[in-house]
């Protein structure tokens, strides 16, 4: 049954369209909270549908355009769970009486459809459409605080650089099509070793990496990240710093391991450079930030760098480590932004690290959650962040990437400085004479959001086995399809000696 393969997407599409239809019928002054609850419900249903897909036999549907396998299910669960937390955090932190909130939730649902499609697509056309669905809805969400100049500015910067990146990604697809005559990922892998114009494929790899590098905000394609995170509303940042990035990483894995394994010797060094530059630049720039959101933006660039380390090890462990890292990263990041969206307020009136001084005395529970997420971002044991880094670096070491592993470890040390700076601010007495701004009471939905992300981060740090197993199964489906091309690696390597 074809529909079973895209069931989560279908559920979310129907729910999103329904909200768009019902929302204008509600009276102008009516609360839009029910649409928020409805979207939470739809997201739970999509999560359940994804989990159910695990019991389906892996296979393709709709003429081989989408593929349901352990890899796609892993990222489906990851994305649905993250968006669920982001939705819960958004319901109360944005003004529920505002009449455009229906659109807000509908855009989140429809954007999630795009992200889900990205992870299950095995045809580059569908990857492109999924990428655009998710990007276009995030462009709008970034500018949702229309009255604020900063929000609109974030929106336009995100839009211009995002479309710029899309053009590069598309050009890469076009050149791949030129080299192989197809846009199916499996067919590309089969045709690539016999191509008469390998130069097209090499250029395509570079262009696709530039395009997706923008989407995952890897340095040197990161320039938009700090501004967009600072300007966009925090509940939206909780969403867009996590789920679309995870989807873009899934696409990177799917394309590079699924379609281009035979020219692996041409692209792994690109990933090496990208990973090293992202880690170093992200961490060094984060050291001198005053704004909490900007600091976390640079930290997310650094985390993209750690994740890219896993790409350089051309192995099953590497893919599994990358997927697992993505899972831990979204769990802690969505959590910390949920806290920030509450503490900072919808209009970001508390933004700098000094504003967060003494949060422990005003709101100990929120502060404890934030401290826990910060510890996980550092990579302290018993948090998801620890195992994530551990697996990534051990995958890199297994393949003999000593240089990169050392750069990564040094960077983890640097990163501890700025996380600890925020952490000590949280627990130090507020400065004398500075106005103490009250933090409003935490709502139940926000508490639930923080509880979900905190327990996910904790579980990943204590019993990572089951999620790691699923990540490994997913990696297996990806590497298995790469097997014919594995043989091709030998062919390409032998070619010059003939």
């Amino acid at each position: 049954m074809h529909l079973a393969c895209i069931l989560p997407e279908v559920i979310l599409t129907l729910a999103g369209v329904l909200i768009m239809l019902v929302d204008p019928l509600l009276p102008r002054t009516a609360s839009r909270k029910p649409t928020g609850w409805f979207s939470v419900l739809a997201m739970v249903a999509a999560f359940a549908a994804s989990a159910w897909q695990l019991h389906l036999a892996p296979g393709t549907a709709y003429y081989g355009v989408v593929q349901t396998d352990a890899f796609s299910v892993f990222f489906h669960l990851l994305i649905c769970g993250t968006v669920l937390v982001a939705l819960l955090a958004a319901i109360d932190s944005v003004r529920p009486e505002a009449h455009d909130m229906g659109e807000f939730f509908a855009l989140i649902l429809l954007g999630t459809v795009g992200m889900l499609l990205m992870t299950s697509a095995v045809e580059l056309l569908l990857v492109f459409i999924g990428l655009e669905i998710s990007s276009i809805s995030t462009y709008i969400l970034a500018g949702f605080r229309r009255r604020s100049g900063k929000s609109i500015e974030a929106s336009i910067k995100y839009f211009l650089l995002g479309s710029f990146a899309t053009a590069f990604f598309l050009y890469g697809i076009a050149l791949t099509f030129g080299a192989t005559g197809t846009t199916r990922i499996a067919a590309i892998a089969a045709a690539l070793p016999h191509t008469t114009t390998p130069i097209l494929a090499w250029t395509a790899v570079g262009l696709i990496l530039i395009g997706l590098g923008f989407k995952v905000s890897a340095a040197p394609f990161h320039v938009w990240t700090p501004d967009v995170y600072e300007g966009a509303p925090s509940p939206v940042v909780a969403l867009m710093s996590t789920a679309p990035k995870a989807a873009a990483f899934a696409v990177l894995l799917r394309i590079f391991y699924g379609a281009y394994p035979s020219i692996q010797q041409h692209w792994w060094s690109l990933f090496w450079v990208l990973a090293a530059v992202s880690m170093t630049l992200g961490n060094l720039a984060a050291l001198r930030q005053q704004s909490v959101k900007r600091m976390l933006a640079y930290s997310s660039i650094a985390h993209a760098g750690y994740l890219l380390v896993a790409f350089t090890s051309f192995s099953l462990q590497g893919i599994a480590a990358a997927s697992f890292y993505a899972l831990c990263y979204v769990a802690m990041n969505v959590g910390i932004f949920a806290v920030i969206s509450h503490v900072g307020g919808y209009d970001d009136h508390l933004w700098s690290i000094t504003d967060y001084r003494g949060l422990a005395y005003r709101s100990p529970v929120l502060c404890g959650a934030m401290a826990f997420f910060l510890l996980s971002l550092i990579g302290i044991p018993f948090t998801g962040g620890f195992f994530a880094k551990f697996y990534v670096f051990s995958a890199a070491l297994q393949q003999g990437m000593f240089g990169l592993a050392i750069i990564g470890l040094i960077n983890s040390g640097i990163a501890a400085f700025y996380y600890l700076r925020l952490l000590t601010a949280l627990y130090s007495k507020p400065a004398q004479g500075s106005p103490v701004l009250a933090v409003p009471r935490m709502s139940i939905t926000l508490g639930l959001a923080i509880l979900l992300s905190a327990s996910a981060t904790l579980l990943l740090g204590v019993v990572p086995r089951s999620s790691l197993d699923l990540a490994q199964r997913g990696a297996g489906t990806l590497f298995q399809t790469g097997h014919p091309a594995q043989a091709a690696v030998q062919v390409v390597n032998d070619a010059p000696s003939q």
Partner: protein
Amino acid sequence: MHLWPLAVYLVIVVMLVVAMLGLSFVLGQRHHNRATGTPYESGILSQGSARVRLSAKFYLVAMFFVIFDLEAVFIFAWAIAVRETGWTGYAEAMGFIAVLLATLVYLWRVGALDWRQGSRRVVA
């Protein structure tokens, strides 16, 4: 080479243009009156600047046209393959059109299609 007719044609075109412009230059009269430099030499006075700010309403209508117009491409593509795709294709095309209709209903309900001043619920 079979390009010589083209060359002859080009030469004739250039000659014709030169002749027309040259003859009117030689034979035509020249005058310089008060109204010669104005946009309408017939005497109508132009009002205001040409750089008028147009209402964003025009942008909305243009955008709706472009989007709905382009979506029609997929319906055309289905139309030429309607027999091959069968009932599955029919169902999917209907789903596609249903989503388009839902969009139209949404636009209508939020007042984006309303042309009167001040009656819209959303400001673009």
